[in-house]
């Protein structure tokens, strides 16, 4: 196990109280695998990744749990120790390639900064060579010239490639990709996913892929964790999840993927209702208000995450074999 998260809880102080954005979640990432974390916005998936990286905003704080990376708790590391890990052993790419690069520096300087920060003895010349090599690896044409570009001279897809080159420049063990394709055109999305897949093979790293798009998951991931309102509601191998989704929320997400081969004229499925206000969570299952198969017990009690077959599911339907009915 490369990364193991145990009971992670992250809270945000807001004007009218405290929001628990991540509520005691546990999962792990194996070496060399791509783990997808899926959920709507507000499900806590991005906060999870920012908690691992120690990049939470001022009003956010990890209030419980452990983040074990290679067996060591990142939450117990000093700022300097974390700085040595970030960008070197764990690196991250973000949703907005258009704004994630510093507009006033050439792309080569931004990549070289990462390399030189973690390789103090390397000369600038070597760092530049490595930078150009990385740009070539991520598929940027004529990298010697494009290295001198400023971010605004590049397209969104190119910028995301630069971000990937930067993140991989120190050959990390874990890459956290937070919605890396959401802001891009569909054709570019596929290319970037393909690139991530390739890079995983090439550098033999693990990837934690955060997305709201199950289509992306189906293409790239090995294992899936589905999050809703700061909790894990289901997790399974990707094949098993698509073949036999269990939690009504997972089912809803799957049904709302548009399919080309779908000839029926029925409108696309949508999960009814909205994510509940994080300040006023219902006492029972947070999905109960939107669930097609909601029962009495769902509104009163919170279900536990328990193994059902080869899945982990948080739903009363599977407690007493209710699902079979």
């Amino acid at each position, binding site marked *: 196990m490369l990364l193991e998260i145990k009971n992670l809880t992250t809270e945000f102080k807001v004007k009218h109280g405290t929001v628990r954005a991540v509520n005691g979640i546990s999962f792990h990432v194996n070496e060399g695998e791509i783990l997808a974390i899926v959920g709507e916005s507000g499900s806590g998936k991005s906060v999870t990744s920012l908690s691992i990286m120690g990049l939470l905003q001022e009003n956010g704080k990890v209030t419980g749990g452990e983040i074990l990376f290679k067996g060591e708790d990142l939450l117990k590391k000093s700022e300097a120790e974390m700085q040595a890990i*970030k960008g070197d052993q764990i690196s991250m790419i*973000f949703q907005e390639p258009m*704004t994630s690069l*510093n*507009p*006033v520096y050439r792309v080569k300087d931004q990549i070289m900064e990462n390399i030189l920060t*973690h390789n103090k003895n390397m000369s600038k010349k070597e760092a530049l060579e490595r930078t150009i090599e990385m740009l070539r690896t991520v598929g940027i044409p004529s990298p010697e010239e494009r290295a001198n570009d*400023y971010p605004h001279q590049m397209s969104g897809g190119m910028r995301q490639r630069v*971000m990937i080159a930067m993140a991989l420049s120190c050959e990390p063990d874990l890459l956290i990709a937070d919605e890396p394709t959401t802001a891009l055109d569909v054709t570019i999305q596929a290319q970037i996913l393909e690139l991530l897949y390739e890079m995983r093979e090439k550098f033999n790293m693990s990837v934690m892929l955060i997305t709201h798009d199950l289509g992306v998951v189906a293409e790239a991931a090995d294992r899936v964790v589905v999050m809703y309102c700061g909790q894990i509601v289901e997790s399974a191998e990707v094949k098993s999840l698509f073949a036999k989704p269990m939690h009504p929320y997972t089912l809803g997400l799957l049904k709302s993927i548009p399919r080309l081969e779908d000839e029926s004229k029925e409108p696309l499925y949508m999960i009814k209702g909205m994510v509940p206000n994080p300040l006023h969570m219902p006492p029972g299952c947070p999905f109960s208000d939107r669930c097609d198969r909601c029962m009495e017990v769902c509104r009163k009690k919170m279900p536990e995450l328990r193994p059902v077959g080869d899945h982990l599911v948080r739903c009363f339907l599977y407690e007493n074999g209710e699902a079979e009915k």
Partner: protein
Amino acid sequence: MIKYTIKRILLLIPVLFGVSLVVFLIMRVFSPDPAPVVLGEHASREAMQAWRNAHGLNDPIVWQFIDFLKNALTGNFGTSYYTNQPVMKEIMARFPATVELAICAILFASVFGVLLGVVSAVRKNTAVDYASTILALIGVSMPIFWLGILLIILFSGTLHILPSTGRIQPMLQPVGGTGLYLWDTLTSGDFEAFGDAARHLIMPTLALAMYSLAIITRMTRSSMLDTLNQDYIRTARSKGISSHRVVKHHALRNAMIPITTVIGLQFGSLLGGAVLTETVFAWPGIGSYTVQCIQKSDFPVVQAVVLIIATVYVLINLIVDLIYAFLDPRIKYSKEEG
């Protein structure tokens, strides 16, 4: 970049022409006849007529303007009604004093304003932040001449540690040189005179800089808060670089773009403020001289001063715009391509 610079310089011509026209209209067309003021109410009609003739004030107004423009281009602004010295000579004798004061003030305001603004943004909602907010509020609310007066009462009247007027003790005054006493005394190695000139500069600099300091602090703070929230700052942090480097290298470098513009604009209010500061501290620069000339209706001097200050101001803003383009590659490169 060069093309852009040339274009900007060419654009200055109509502005400066406009400034000359405005100044000329105010001083020569709308102002009352200066003859009775200069010669005294009781001078004879003939004497006044002769005086007007001598100063070209009886020529058709359009001719007067063309003459004024033609001469101004060669740096000739006529002669003072009182001293009969060329206006340019009178101004150049006082110009270095104002330049020295203005440079000290803008340096002080920029350095401390940016420093204070960055610290308050990074330590948002702490005692430092509140203190700098209060300082900024006081800075924009206090008339600079009153601040000058308070400084004199405190440091000259009560503590007796700083001189209240002038630039330097007459004995120590450097001869020749640039007229910038700090520079002249330093290059000639006269440290006693340097110290004395510096002591004379402290209070006028503080009084003149305060308003700009407040504006620059506020602007830096809000600009830094803005950039610190940008995605690329998060990217920088994810690279594991030190937070000091994140603030300086990534956030401040971007925040400097709008701050530079504000510093340039502050130069204008500073040149205006020099008029008041120089009056309070009897600083022998062009600001206090202008006030005296207005009171005496010495119009050629006033025209020249306003035109020169406006020229300096637009030139500084041109330089600021070029720095701006240099700081922001998005502008530099789109300008070159376009």
